[in-house]
């Protein structure tokens, strides 16, 4: 209480000095008297003065914040960032953004039920540069009480911009630049949908996207593995993030079925794993770091020392990997239902 009174006293003296120093305060003594009485009243140790003083002291920062950050806090950034999110990743031109727009359009149709948007296909898309997120509802039926809203986060697939999706899995503290533990991360990731273009995945096809897709998947799985091994304390583990490998474009003639996609990716991931282990050290890593701090097999995906890589090995790190085929544009064969079901289950 004393401190508050002191604060008020200091403010009052400041005002008083300002008032006396002000040259344009007309010399009439009445005003001086008025100010004087006001100051005296404000320094009286009675309840009202103390309460108003307290209110001013406490509310000032709140108003200040409102004034400075008012305009962006009203947009739903604060509310939506706490929503669970599903990350959409994968190499360029796999169909990530198309899937996003398709889901969004379907959601729009379900709620508004207007016949204006009769075309249910995905929007036409091009190479993305920035991530975008869409708020979706995973409720099975409209009368379900609890609205299960979630964010679907689309990330660019261009190799130069891949770090954005890995940032989502291993977020950095914006202030210090140090890695953040998952429980403090700004958004809760419930799952990762990794899209691949099944029609160009065959290693024999002329412009095979296999090695590109596998490299990206390797980095992604390794990030998930690091997240698990770094932030586990005893038997307490960070919340699991399952991975769905969505083999897109199954409507095309050259597309591999989901089982083959899985086989090819596993084989390629195994090859990457071997060549990475044999590769040169990264610049900046000192010799003594390697033998000292770093654990053996820290950069080895899956079961250390195993011959072949299989997605099953990721279960050791609580990462469930599933491969489901489908097609964004529809046509014959499976559509996007399988993926949607997976997403709904995970949210």
């Amino acid at each position, binding site marked *: 209480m004393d401190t508050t009174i002191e604060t008020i006293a200091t403010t009052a003296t400041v005002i008083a000095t300002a008032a006396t120093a002000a040259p344009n305060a007309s010399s009439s003594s009445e005003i001086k008297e008025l100010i004087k009485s006001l100051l005296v009243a404000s320094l009286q140790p009675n309840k009202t003065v103390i309460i108003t003083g307290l209110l001013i002291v406490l509310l000032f920062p709140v108003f*200040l914040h409102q004034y*400075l*950050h008012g305009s*962006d806090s009203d*947009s*739903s*950034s604060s509310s*939506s960032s706490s929503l669970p999110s599903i990350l959409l990743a994968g190499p*360029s*031109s796999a169909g990530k*953004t198309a899937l*996003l*727009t398709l889901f*969004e*359009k379907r959601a*729009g149709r379900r709620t508004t039920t207007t016949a204006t948007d009769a075309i249910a296909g995905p*929007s*036409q*898309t*091009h*190479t*993305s*540069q*920035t*991530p*975008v*997120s*869409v*708020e979706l509802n995973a409720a099975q039926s409209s009368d379900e009480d609890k609205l299960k809203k979630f*964010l679907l986060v*689309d990330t*660019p697939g*261009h*190799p*130069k*911009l*891949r*770090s954005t999706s890995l940032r989502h899995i291993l977020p950095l503290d*914006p202030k210090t630049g140090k890695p953040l533990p998952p429980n403090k991360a700004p958004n809760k990731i419930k799952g990762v949908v990794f899209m691949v273009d099944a029609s160009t995945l*065959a*290693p*024999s096809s002329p412009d095979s996207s296999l*090695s*590109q897709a596998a*490299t990206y998947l390797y980095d992604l799985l390794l990030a998930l593995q690091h997240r698990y091994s770094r932030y586990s304390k005893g038997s307490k583990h960070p919340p699991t993030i399952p991975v769905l490998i969505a083999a897109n474009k199954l409507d095309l003639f050259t597309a591999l079925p989901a089982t083959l996609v899985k086989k090819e990716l596993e084989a390629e991931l195994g*090859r*990457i794993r071997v*060549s*990475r282990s*044999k*590769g*040169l*050290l*990264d*610049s*900046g*890593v000192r010799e003594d770091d390697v033998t000292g701090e770093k654990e053996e097999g820290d950069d080895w995906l899956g079961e250390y020392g195993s011959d072949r890589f299989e997605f099953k090995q990721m279960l050791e790190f609580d990462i469930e990997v599933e491969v489901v085929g489908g097609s964004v544009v529809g046509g014959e064969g499976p559509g996007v239902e399988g993926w949607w079901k997976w997403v709904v289950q995970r949210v």
Partner: protein
Amino acid sequence: MLDTFEILTTSGVVLWSRTYAAVSPAVVNNFISDVFIEEKSAVAGTKDGASASANPPYKYDQHTLRWSFEKELGIIFVAVYRSLLHLSWIDKLVDNIRTIFVNLYGDQLKKPNVTLIQCAKFDNYFDQQLQELENTGSKTDSKDLRAFQDETLSDDLSDMPPPLPGLIRGGRVPSSINTSKHGDSDFDTSPNASRPTTPAAASHLLVAKSGPGGKMSRRARKLQNTNSAPASSGDEAAAKRTKAKAAKKGRKWDADGLADEDDDVQLDFSASKAASDSEGEAGRRPAVEEVDASTWGSTTKGKFVLRDLGDEVHSILASAEAKNSASKTDAPTGLVGTGLSAIGGLFRNVVGGKVLTKEDLDKAMKGMEEHLLKKNVAREAAVRLCEGVEKELIGVKTGSFESINTRIQKAMEVSLTKMLTPTSSLDLLREIDSITSPPATSLRKARPYVMSIVGVNGVGKSTNLSKICFFLLQNKYKVLIAAGDTFRSGAVEQLAVHVRNLKELTQREGGKVELYQKGYGKDAAAVAKDAVAFAAQEGYDVVLIDTAGRRHNDQRLMSSLEKFAKFAQPDKILMVGEALVGTDSVAQAKNFNASFGAGRSLDGFIISKCDTVGDMVGTIVSIVHATNVPVLFVGVGQHYSDLRNFSVKWAVEKLLSSA
């Protein structure tokens, strides 16, 4: 004509598009990745410039793209057309469409977590703009053309007295007499009909000016023309009516496009039609007439709908322009106002939540530029990087308790990371494996993987070559080293020493290495070619070709590289650059990158002597900035094992560290 016009967001969703001719999506995809992501165009700094004309056109596979970028909303406006065409109004179209679109749908676009917007109605706005601009474009064109025609007419015919009056009068007089609006268009059709080479665009003019008059029935126009034609050509024309009909079939045209017959046939067909009542004439005509009439009908119909839109569009454009000019003249008012905003600015600088302006950034950017220069980044690269970051940051709001400098630091880190990150995977071992033992299903034959190393004198080509060789030997490859330096004495012997050392070092690891040499004075390209053939024969996995050091601005020495690339067909050409070198690194990288002829460029850099410069690794930024070629390895010491993969994170940390 315009092939396609697209409005898309930076997140890749096409909001609205109009396609006239199918264009492969690869065109726009390549445009985005080249201009926005990889920033290949030299003037990438202007990418958020206000006008489409300020942005350099992007050319890809016979198509030209004009574009404009709305940074605040993250929307790109792209117009694609064939490079052969010269469309002067495209810039204007892109700009106008951008203004209209942002005005109409800006609010929808600002909503978070939504990618779809309702813009089905935009079709009409676009049509209106397109038509209007096409008209203005073709109007000027045809005006030029007409002026030219008149000139040639009078020039050529001034010494041909008899046919002149009839010809000129026939072409011109009806238009002056015709009171209805479409007289104008009649006048325009006359050059159209007489000159098959008149651009098709001129026919749009007809649509534009027709107005309500365009709907007039044929009979009515005929009637009008019968009234006017006799008045113009007088009794002479009436007398020659039958003759004109006969002449129509066999008219000959001279080089200037003028009738060389000396009858005074009217070239204005709509006027002469009045005179032609006979069956033969009528049989030939209607085809032309009917096509004309149908286009008139449909577009006039469209035009009535568009009239209101046109007004709306014009008001939008006008208000945007007014706002523009207002913001330019808008000076800070009053002393109190500036004082308050200054205090507020200072305050916000500490607390955060400040919207950054150019003035705020200027000083801080200067500091960042100085910092980069101190890190040995070439001035050219530093300036462009800073410009890019500044453009990116203008209008951005800083976070809570974030000062301008930390915001700039963060943005610079992002843009450096983006620049240094390679576009494709750089796993050397996997590449070698895929070449030397291709998958059984593919049709490629196994062959040795060829790598060559180029660079300026004394940067450490041979040293780095042997470092790479050591790395490959540890992975149990059979390596052949080709001595391509047939010029400097001692070069071959130097390699021989390296090979001897490497043999001893890796004996128990199972690798195998040999030297392929042909002594001095031979053609290096031929030696390299022989070495590759020899390696294929003997079953080597990798061929490493050393080359002579050469000055990058010596045309004579550099020109031999093209032949070398053609003869040896290397899978990878690496250039060794010193970390020590300063501004010259940009020129070195550029010249070497361009020296292998069309269709071949460098595949990567090795930055040597990184251990000698400490934090000043700016050379890496300079060369990647100049060429867009990634850095593969960095040399960090004197031993064979002192070769490292390049880590982007490491480089960015060093560059931004302020020690």
